[in-house]
Each structure stands twice: as C-alpha cells, then as structure tokens.
C-alpha cells in the first residue's frame, strides 16, 4: 500500500509517553500514516480540519477539551473521521462504550488490538454520540461547520438560543450561528446555564440583565427579557412568567 491509500491517523493524548507509545505501535502497522499529534481536544480538532484524518485516536481524559467532546465536534467534518478512544481505566466509560458499540482501547495498548480496531474503525453514529456524551456532564463548546472548518462556540459566550424551523440560532456578542441540535436536549444538558423564556427560546442566566413589562396596543401586557451586550429583546411566554420572579428574586 502506498502513502496515498494509507490510513490517515491523528493521535490526541495529553501525555507525551502515551503519544510516543502509539507512534511506536503504528510504525509497525503497515498502511498507516500519522498526520498529526495533539495534546488536547481543541488541538485535535484544529489538526483534523486541516488534515482530514480517516481515524482519530482520542484519549478520553485530556485537559481543556476532552476526547469525547472533541469526537462529537469532529463528526461535523465531511467526511467525518472514524474515532477510537483510548483510556487507562474508567469503568463508566468502558460500560458506555460497550453499550453503544463505540471502539475503545485500554492502555497499555497492544499492537494486535490497535491493528484490529483500525481495521474496523468507522465514524460515530448520532445515537452513539448521544450515548457517550452522557459520560461527560457538559460540553464546553457548541460546534458548527463552516466551509470545511469547525467553528467552536464557547458556551460562556452564548447569550441565547432560538429555535428556527430546522435549526437553532446561537447568539453571541459578535454574531449568530446556526447549529443542528435540539433545544430540549440543550435545555437538559445545561439546565444550570440556560433558562427557558419561551417555547422556542433559551437564554443564558448570566446574560439576563432584567425584565420589563411591555404594553401592547390591544391592552395586553407581557414580560420581556433585557440582555447584556446585545440590544435584542426576548419575549417571556405566559407559561414561563414565573422565571421573572425566580431570577429577579
């Protein structure tokens, strides 16, 4: 097999000896080429969007962005890379991986296991992703693909999310993004960060300045939320009016 058809592999692990070990093992598996080495999930994504690997070997526990979150974001690349997780020991992760049939390797990693895993490696299915995401209490970023790049939106920057037909609009101070996720899932995942103001809208608690009562021409009145950093005004639905008192105390 020549370089052109070789399996393009990206390694991500925060520990140098662990990367070193994978490099040594891969050197013995014909038909593989390492296209990059990353020290955390963020670096792995940066490398992945440039080099488009076929397989990402991701350590689960990495500082900054962990392997599971990185795997999720990487799936919006096209074509999405296959993912194999590596871990030293993590009972919960192992169980979740077994259940969702996600590929994983236990450290110390054996040559035959690695070769085998590479043979059958494939991209993650959305169900698998949902299954293993439960392992990590919270993501740190949302991701959108834009012209073959992965744009990461730090959760701390998100002011509000609004459901719009098929997509969600994510509003940050600078701009809006469209992401392909469900408002309900996000509400569940980040119940401490976001609060539902309306059937189609979640707002970040830290960005809510206060509430104001608006009077309509027809005599009806309703609450709206005022936000930090953006002039946008979000209506609060009648059903969610209790939020006004909860947040303003």
């Amino acid at each position, binding site marked *: 097999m020549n370089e052109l058809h070789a399996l393009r592999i990206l390694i991500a692990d*925060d*520990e*140098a*000896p*662990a990367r*070193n*070990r994978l490099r*040594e093992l891969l050197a013995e598996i014909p038909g593989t080429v390492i296209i990059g080495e990353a*020290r*955390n999930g963020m670096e792995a994504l940066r490398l992945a969007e440039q080099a488009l690997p076929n397989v990402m070997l991701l350590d689960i*526990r990495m*500082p*900054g962005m962990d392997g599971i979150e990185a795997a999720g974001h990487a799936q919006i690349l096209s074509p999405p890379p296959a993912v194999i997780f590596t871990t*030293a*020991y*993590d009972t919960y992760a192992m169980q979740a991986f077994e259940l969702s049939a996600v590929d994983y390797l*236990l*450290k*110390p*990693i054996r040559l035959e296991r690695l070769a085998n895993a590479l043979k059958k490696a494939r991209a993650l299915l959305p169900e698998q992703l949902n299954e293993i995401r439960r392992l990590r*209490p919270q993501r740190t970023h949302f991701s959108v693909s834009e012209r073959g790049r992965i744009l990461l939106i730090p959760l701390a920057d998100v002011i509000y999310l609004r459901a719009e037909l098929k997509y969600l609009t994510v509003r940050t101070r600078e701009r809006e993004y469209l992401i392909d996720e469900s408002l309900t899932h996000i509400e569940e995942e980040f119940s401490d960060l976001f609060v539902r103001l309306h059937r189609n809208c979640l707002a970040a608690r830290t960005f809510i300045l206060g509430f104001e009562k608006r009077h309509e021409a027809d005599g009806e009145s309703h609450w709206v939320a005022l936000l930090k950093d953006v002039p946008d005004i979000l209506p609060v639905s009648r059903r969610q009016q209790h939020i006004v008192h909860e947040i303003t105390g």
Partner: protein
Amino acid sequence: MRMMASIKQNHRPIPIALPDLRNLGVQLRVLVLANAMAAIAAVLRSNSMSETWQELLQISAAMQPVLLASMLALFSIHRQLAKLSYRLGIVAVFMLVLSLTALAHVAAAWLFGPEFVPSLLRMWFFSAIMTGILLVYFNLRGRALSPAITEARLQALQARIRPHFLFNAINAVLSLIRSDPRRAETALEDMADLFRVLMADNRQLIPLQSEINLCQQYLALEKLRLGGRLRVTWKLDSVPMDALIPPLVLQPLLENAVYHGIEPLAEGGEIDIRLYRSRNEIHLLLNNPYRKGGDHHHGNKMALSNIRERLALHFDAEAQLKTKVTDYLYEVHIVIPYRTEP
C-alpha cells in the same frame, strides 16, 4: 496465601494495654466518665434538686483533686507503666490512686478539720470503684477497637492506588523501553517500591522519612507521564524525620492533587508541600491548583475520609485533617501529635 495470613491474624494474642494518658481523647474520656459517675452518686444520695447540687459539690471537692493528681501522676510515669505487664500495671494504678486518695484525705483533714472530710474508707471505696470502672471501660474499648475490628478497619482503609495511575504509569514505562531503557528501568524500580509499600501490612506507624521517600518515587513516576506540567516544591523546614505517621497519608493526597489539580490543566501547575513541627505537633500542608467545577470530588472525598478515619484510629482526637478551597487553590492541612519510636 490470603487464607494463611488471615488465620494467623486471628490467632494473634490480643494486646490489651493500659490507656495512654498522653492522649487527649483518653484524658477527656476519663474526666467525663469520672464526673458522670460523681453526678450519679450525687443523684442517688439526695432527695431534691438543691440537695443534689449540694452533694455534687461535696463529692467534687473530694474527687477532683484526687482525679487530677492521679492523672498527672500516671501521665508522668507512663514510660515506666508501659514496661509493666497489664496485670502489674493495674495493680500499680490502683496503688497509686489509693495512696493519692489517702494523701488527699490527710491534706483535707488538716486544711478543713476532720469533721468536714468523708472517712478515709469511704474515699478509698469511691476511688477504687471509679478506677475499676474506668479500667474496665478502657479494657472493653480497647478490645472493641484494637484487635480484630480495628485491624479489619485499618486493612479495609489501606490506601489504594488509583487504577488510572497504575495503567497510565505502565503505559508510560512501555513507551520508554525502546527509546530510553535506563529510564524505564528506574521507573519500574520505583513502581516496585511503591507497590511493595501499598501491598504491605500498613497498620504500623512509620517514620516520616519513609513516607517522604515513597512520595518522591511516586512523583517521579507521575513526572514521567506529565513532564514539565507537574511541578513540585517540598518545604521541609526542620521537620523531624523520625516523627511517626500512619503510612500512606501523604501519598494519596499527592495522587489527588495530581489527578484533580494538575491533570486538568493543559499548562500544568505546582504542588506545594510543606512540613513543619510546631511544639508537639507535626503539620503537613499541601496545596494544589484548583479550578471550580470539573469532574472533581467523589474520589477525592473518599480518599480524604479514608485518611481522616485512619488518623482517628491511630491518634484519636489528637489528629486533625482540614481542607480549604479558595478560588485557585485547594489546601489540605493535617496535624498529628509528634511521636517517635520509643
């Protein structure tokens, strides 16, 4: 092997010893029990509340000097007492308490006049009963805490290393075998030492020096994986290296610090260990960077309560473990009494 070991343990004679009056917990128990008994006696001898007070005052006046003098005397001769067998020790304690009672009787009669002092026989009787009850109490307590049960507790509490560390360390050593066989050798030697201690019988106190050596070997292994991300400063300002501590008190704290403090930081961080002696106490202070949120806590709490419990089993109320969290730092502070090999 396991079976054998456990059978052997069950046949080990039960070492019952006199209570160690140097221990604050023992002192408190003696005082509380003796006074409780005085209160009971007062209630039994009186018909009304005011009479009870009167009685209690009288009993106390006779009892406290004898009690305190006996405790002081036993405290000062604990070395000699410890050399005696348990039976002889008991005889010695009774003789000491009874002679101090007689002394108190004579002194009180001389000070206040014989008519205000209970008869010597009554005082002896009271002292003997009290001493007897206290000795029985400590004997029972010793039986309940020391042999089988405490040993089982201690064994169950023996600090365990995180599998996470074990497998990562093996992985790191494997990666060195080809490129740097010498470092791989050292690493395996460190690992062997570490596991020898972990698998040993860790119920006896050890000198501080051994624990520090063990910690350094552990840190060398972690350094292999984490490289420059792990920075450690030791400040051993004149701490006596012969001070006795329960084994594996410091090492699990370091393991926590690495797992929760250093590993989550891409740029790494510093663990700061300070040991010092203040009067008769040894202080162990450990700091590591800390970021709120994150996957903290369950494992950390387990390790801490494990250490806390072992400290209590060894030192009773005299040892302390406190933790403090600030915005960026996590601090553990342990205080143990300064004891050395007799």
